[in-house]
């Protein structure tokens, strides 16, 4: 058995991992809506449940495109060079990591956008007070809103990628249309999304100064690089002359994607720790009639 015989298994595993991460973030948002808000605004919470649900459904649909994404990268790219089998394995692994990083970021965005909606940004204390000046507020809200719209649009594009209609495409070309480039198109939208997120970070820097986390800037920068990669190589035929570029950039892109995944996982681990502590405290209060000892 070679690596190729495990690709379907690995792809399924990555898809499950993406679902688990998505479920955890959706749960986090739901718990925040139910128990986390100090001030309940019912209409606003109803809207929040609505747009979060739409985003969760779109992200879930986008996970089905994982196999198509890997196939598109492998499809043209691996017809070149030698030793081929290791190139195939490299392309499969890298493309899986890159796509998983996108899904992880979408899931994380659910939580970040919900928090910001309540004027909470965890790394910066007193975010609400800092965003009182009108101009700063406009800059922060404007970039956040644009990013949220692009985020939904990109998920929509990826969802379309999950349901390819190659036969219909040939018919539309016969009718005079141009060939579609679903992956390059998604990469193009993603460039704008991450550029907007970088602008949002800059607005945050203007608002909170040095308190704005640099690691988040690197996170968005990594997303921007990966978007460029998908835009350039997603639907392009690859020949010998562009082989080195493809291999070089896919390795760099997957290194960035790994960083994005680790960033999201650490974020989730922190949240899980808080949940465990909350449950322990609750059990301590209910079962042992007293507060549980403080956690680490």
């Amino acid at each position: 058995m070679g690596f190729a015989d495990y690709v379907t298994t690995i792809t399924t595993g990555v898809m499950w991992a993406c679902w688990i991460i998505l479920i955890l973030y959706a749960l986090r948002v739901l718990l925040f809506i139910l128990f986390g808000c100090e001030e309940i605004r019912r209409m606003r919470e109803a809207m929040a449940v609505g747009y979060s649900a739409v985003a969760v459904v779109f992200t879930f649909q986008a996970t089905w495109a994982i196999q198509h994404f890997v196939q598109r990268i492998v499809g043209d790219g691996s017809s070149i060079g030698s030793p081929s089998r290791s190139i195939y394995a490299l392309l499969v692994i890298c493309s899986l990591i890159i796509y998983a990083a996108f899904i992880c970021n979408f899931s994380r965005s659910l939580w970040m956008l919900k928090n910001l909606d309540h004027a909470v940004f965890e790394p910066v204390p007193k975010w609400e007070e800092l965003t009182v000046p009108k101009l700063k507020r406009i800059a922060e809200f404007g970039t956040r809103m644009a990013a949220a719209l692009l985020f939904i649009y990109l998920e929509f594009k990826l969802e379309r990628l999950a349901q390819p209609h190659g036969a219909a495409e040939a018919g539309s070309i016969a009718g005079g249309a141009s060939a579609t480039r679903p992956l390059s198109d998604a990469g193009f939208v993603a460039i704008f999304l991450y550029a907007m997120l970088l602008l949002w970070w800059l607005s945050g820097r203007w608002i909170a100064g040095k308190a704005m986390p640099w690691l988040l800037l690197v996170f968005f920068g990594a997303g921007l690089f990966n978007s460029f990669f998908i835009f350039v190589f997603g639907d392009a035929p690859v020949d010998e002359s562009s082989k080195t570029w493809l291999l070089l950039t896919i390795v760099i892109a997957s290194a960035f994607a790994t960083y994005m995944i680790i960033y999201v996982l650490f974020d989730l681990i922190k949240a899980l720790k808080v949940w465990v502590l909350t449950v322990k405290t609750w059990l301590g209060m209910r079962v042992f009639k007293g507060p549980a000892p403080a956690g680490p």
Partner: protein
Amino acid sequence: MRPKTHVFPAFAGRLRKWCSFGLALLCLSSLLVTPACHRDQGKVIFALPVADWWTAAPFLLPQNAEIFKQKGLDLTTLEVKSGLESKNAVIAGTADIGVCAATPLAIAAAKKEGLVVLNTYLRASSIVGFVRPKDMAPNAVPPAPVGLVLSTISESFLYHYLKQRGQEKLLIDKQLPTRPARPADIPGLFKSQAVKSAVIWEPFLSIAGEETGYVADRSVPFEVNLYIITRPTVWNERKETVQKFLAAVEETCRYLRENSDPSRRNTEQRFGFKADFLAATWPLVHYEVVWDLQHMKDEINREAETAKALGQISEIPKSDYLFAK
């Protein structure tokens, strides 16, 4: 009693954290991989080049799903753009079975990429040809830049055309400017005047040939066979499933042969072509699952020689292992 201390408390704390993180990851991965490893024996992922009606037609018949189900197969179709992509999907593991022409197979054999040819699936003549200016003289070298799909029958066709006219050096020495493209991009390249001619297969040959000033030239004889392929491990370990797949394909092909006109209309409908768009080209393709070893060997050898001449491979491969079946 003295409190328990550690020489490097900070390091021990971090180590504990990393260990628990690692353990959590290990548990998560085993949780994910265990169910994913359980694979239904009847499940088959098939990489179908769906952009070309002639490769996809039998698989788009309404009866198709029922035929595969009756054979006990759970067929998942992975849509790909070309036979080259289908072959890559099989080698990379994103699909179990694919279809491709002899050109990618010859290159795959030279690189020892690990493939098994199961059968010939279709035979076509004049399905690939030139899109050239109407006023191009017969037997002339096509005007440059020439749109090509690399490592496919498109490149092979051009080589053979030039070779018959003693002009193959133009392609070997790269004196004839070419423009690599995906099949679906070729008609668009004529619109934007990025190419002056192209070698492409149906339906893009017919589509691009409708551009003003151009014509689809099918006069150069060039036989194309498509082969059903898989990985050696799939063939060795899931032989029964693969055989059921071949039997199902044979049944769909037979249905298509016996119901040619309704099948053509169905294909036109599925692709969104206008009525009778395929009337002229439909009879050029013959669908039948056959095992014609010598014919397969001859064609793959011919393509290997082409690939060697074009510098894609360094020596003619011994392709016997491709026919391990």
